[in-house]
């Protein structure tokens, strides 16, 4: 279907149609000085007039153009928080008369529409699909949540200095994987269809077909966003080049700054490490197994009895960066980094993956 125009004043129709179809509607909202995803009733709760300011280890909100609701690029959460949730029960174990029973916990799908999904996060979702949803051991929990999502993307028209999606070829234009995609212009949205369900929803909205000027303006806004990006990663020699850096002094240098606190991995939309924790009842009759996000920066991550396979921060940082930019390609046929820049912003000491990658690929 050709692109359509939805006037901003008609935006609540989108919420209405989705809700009528049984979806919970979630969107980024302003909370605690950033954007957090939350269930919202209508467009009034979107971050109208807010813009973010991101830099390494730095995030602030400012007032901007009151007529715009998607100028706030992103907060710490990505789609990962919806599909591979931070903490969830895996199973309940009971002991009855010496027998063990195992009850798997798999969530019932709850139809959920996410409004305002960024290109980088869609790309990241595609990557997590390869990890969790494909292959012999696909994860039932991820799949249940994933299958219940309806995705309304927003092509970015504003980038942060930390963003480098253009260089990773994941954005700022959403490349697919969405049901509907919006481009925000001053008074209207250009709206594109990415799936049959999206088309069917669009048909219920008060839209008109987009004229050439609107399409052109939308295209230019997204292009300008790409051009505004200053960071990037030179991927021409990846994955190979990184495997040659084993003894590069940069690993030690970054380890002296790195806190090993794991924030980068927690906010990264593709990181999938997790561990399983056991919570037995005091009487020993029952136990719950919980899956939690873990991080390759944890000392326990590589622990095997008596030793740590990755004993120092430099080993852990090396595993992380190499995994993101190189080994992921060997493992899953795609980069593990989509260029969202979150790890740069949310690192308490502002370590910058693009800067580190560039330094590592230079001869020491």
């Amino acid at each position, binding site marked *: 279907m050709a692109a359509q125009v939805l006037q901003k004043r008609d935006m609540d129709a989108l919420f209405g149609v989705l809700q009528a179809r049984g979806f919970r509607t979630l969107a980024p909202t302003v909370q605690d000085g950033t954007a957090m995803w939350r269930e919202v009733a209508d467009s009034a709760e979107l971050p109208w007039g807010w813009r973010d300011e991101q830099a390494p280890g730095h995030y602030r909100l400012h007032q901007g153009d009151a007529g715009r609701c998607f100028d706030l690029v992103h907060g710490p959460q990505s789609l990962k928080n919806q599909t591979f949730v931070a903490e969830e029960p895996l199973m309940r174990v009971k002991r009855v008369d010496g027998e063990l029973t195992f009850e798997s916990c798999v969530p019932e799908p709850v139809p959920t529409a996410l409004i305002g999904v960024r290109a980088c996060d869609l790309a990241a979702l595609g990557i997590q699909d390869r990890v969790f949803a494909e292959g012999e051991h696909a994860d039932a929990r991820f799949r249940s949540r994933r299958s219940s999502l309806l995705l309304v993307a927003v092509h970015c028209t504003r980038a942060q200095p930390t963003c480098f999606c253009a260089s990773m070829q994941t954005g700022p234009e959403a490349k697919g994987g969405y049901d509907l995609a919006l481009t925000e212009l001053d008074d209207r949205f250009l709206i594109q269809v990415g799936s049959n369900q999206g088309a069917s929803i669009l048909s219920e909205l008060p839209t008109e077909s987009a004229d050439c000027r609107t399409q052109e303006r939308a295209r230019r806004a997204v292009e300008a966003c790409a051009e505004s990006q200053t960071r990037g990663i030179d991927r021409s020699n990846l994955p190979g080049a990184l*495997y040659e850096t084993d003894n590069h002094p940069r690993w030690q240098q970054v380890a002296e700054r790195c806190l090993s606190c794991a924030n980068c991995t927690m906010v990264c939309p593709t990181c999938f*490490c997790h561990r399983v924790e056991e919570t037995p009842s005091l009487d020993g009759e029952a136990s719950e197994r919980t899956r939690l996000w873990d991080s390759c920066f944890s000392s*326990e991550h590589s622990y095997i009895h008596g030793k740590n396979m990755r004993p120092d921060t430099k080993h852990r940082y090396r595993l992380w960066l190499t995994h993101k930019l190189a080994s992921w390609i060997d493992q899953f046929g795609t980069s593990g980094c989509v260029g969202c820049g979150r790890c740069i912003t949310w690192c308490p000491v502002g370590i910058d993956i693009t800067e580190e990658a560039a330094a590592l690929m230079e001869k020491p």
Partner: protein
Amino acid sequence: MADPYALYPARIVDKSEESPGIYTYRLRLDDDALRERFVFEGGQFNMIYVAGVGEVPISIVSDPEDSHLLEHTIRVVGRVSGAIGNLKEGDVLGLRGPYGKGWPLETSEGKDVVVITGGLGCAPVVGAIEYMFRRRDRYGAIKILHGVKTPNDLLYRERFDEWRKHENTEVLLASDQPGKTWHYHVGVVTELFDEVEIRPDFAVVMMCGPEIMMRMAAQHLEKRGIRHDTMFLSIERNMQCGVGLCGHCQIGPYFACKDGPVMRYDRVAPYLAGGW
């Protein structure tokens, strides 16, 4: 399996002590259908779960041709293994598997096999050795080289004596430190290489032990002309899931759980004992 974490009750049919702190368990899955379906190869592992405690990866040491009773040899080293050690016949565990890639037992048929093990944790390869002896005529010369730190660390002494009796088989032992009852080699395991003949193009090497030992051994063997792609190493990493989801067991670009635990030396060489 819809849920990769789903566990199945397995009952301890038999428990025997190999030596202090090392036990061999024979487990029987409760579910008949599952038991029938359970097919594995030597060197694969199961995740073994103790209620209220946790789950650990443990190699299957029994023979793939008898999958009704699964044999596991477990050394008590910590939390979960300790809890397994406290269990007795009739107790129920949780089990899922089999996972990972095992020893190249079939492709090694017709070849000489050199088994190099070190330290205490050589259970994963014991199953493979037994497998070959049960099919002794399919293999060429079998040479078992085993190194320990002190004479007291030598486990399975009877098994070594048993194996030694087979035809066309050599068993060589080395201890870093001397001891009164130790009448084998004193020194590191790589020094035993000088005592055995290895035919570069006819031998497959299987190794299990500390990474640093395996790396040294591989470097020695390389000098003796052994090709990298004929050496196989059993890799140990922390594993939470066993199926490539949890990320813990990465070693360079590999997941030890699904690309291993048995891995070809040419692949893992850059990542051994280097903080990967």
